[in-house]
């Protein structure tokens, strides 16, 4: 777009940096998780995420983004950067693709595979005790709360709470790995 053109005037001004910082803080974990699931190692994942945020900000600043879709847009951008690099080509997480709300580019096979993984985890969770499920679910329903607070609210010690999370997670992990 040409600087100062009438088209650019119709575009909203860039967001203040402080707001972008807040957006990054809010969505950074989801971006890193998506990259981890694609087999990207932590330090490289942080670099890709930073590059993706930077590219997104520049696009927004120049009015090339009529809508801001987060964290989907930054995940897609980071994944594109990662594919260009070619380090983990072909290792896109089927689950991540299958669960995309809008991106229907994933093949039916990929989506079906993702759904199967989801059902395996669900079955394994159903086999846990109701109390274990309650504790485990609480950690996902209130991710903003520290584990100590959750444990106190649910009437268990912090140690017991953590142990239960580990046990449930181990069962789910086994179920997912057995399916693969």
């Amino acid at each position: 777009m040409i600087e100062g053109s009438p088209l650019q005037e119709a575009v909203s001004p860039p967001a203040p940096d402080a707001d972008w910082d807040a957006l990054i803080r809010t969505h950074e974990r989801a971006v890193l998780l998506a990259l981890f699931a694609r087999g990207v190692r932590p330090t490289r994942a942080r670099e890709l995420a930073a590059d993706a945020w930077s590219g997104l900000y520049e696009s927004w600043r120049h009015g090339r983004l009529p809508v801001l879709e987060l964290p989907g847009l930054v995940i897609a951008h980071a994944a594109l950067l990662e594919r260009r690099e070619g380090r983990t080509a072909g290792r896109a997480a089927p689950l991540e693709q299958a669960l995309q709300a809008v991106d229907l580019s994933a093949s039916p096979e990929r989506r079906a595979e993702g759904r199967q993984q989801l059902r395996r985890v669900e079955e394994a969770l159903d086999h846990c005790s109701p109390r274990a499920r309650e504790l485990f679910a609480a950690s996902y329903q209130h991710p903003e709360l520290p584990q100590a607070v959750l444990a106190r609210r649910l009437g268990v010690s912090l140690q017991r709470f953590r142990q239960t999370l580990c046990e449930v997670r181990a069962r789910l992990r086994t179920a997912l790995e057995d399916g693969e």
Partner: protein
Amino acid sequence: MSAHLSAEQLSWLVRGEGDLTRWEPHVDVCAECAAAVEREAHLELAVQALFREQRCGTSAIPHFKVLPEDAPVPTSRAWRALPEEAPVPTSRAWRALAGGAVLALVLAVLPAMAPEPTAGTDVPCAGVAVDGGALLMMAAVGDVETPSAHGTP
């Protein structure tokens, strides 16, 4: 740090809990731990999707909050104030909608089955409006005097 990550540390890493910088350098250079982190990330995505599905009826990642083109720049305050996602129609809502439609059909057919009114009697009238599963029936039956154009019957 040379020891491999424990299961608990793996879960902390993918969930962003604890001091990640302690383990990330090790995962960067350890193929075994990197593979474990990848598996753990798959598990985390699955669990998050599962609870999302139980909460709002869809496992789709709520990645996209589409803003209209004339929307203001999403400051963090405006972002928090965005309306919630539209509720996903549940099977109960669909059943209520279907029930309303059937009832409306029956009520529409009933007047046609009723005997023809004789001259001089009042005509029952019924109106039915169905909106989003809620059924509103308005019926007026009885002595309805229709005023004449001249103001006198």
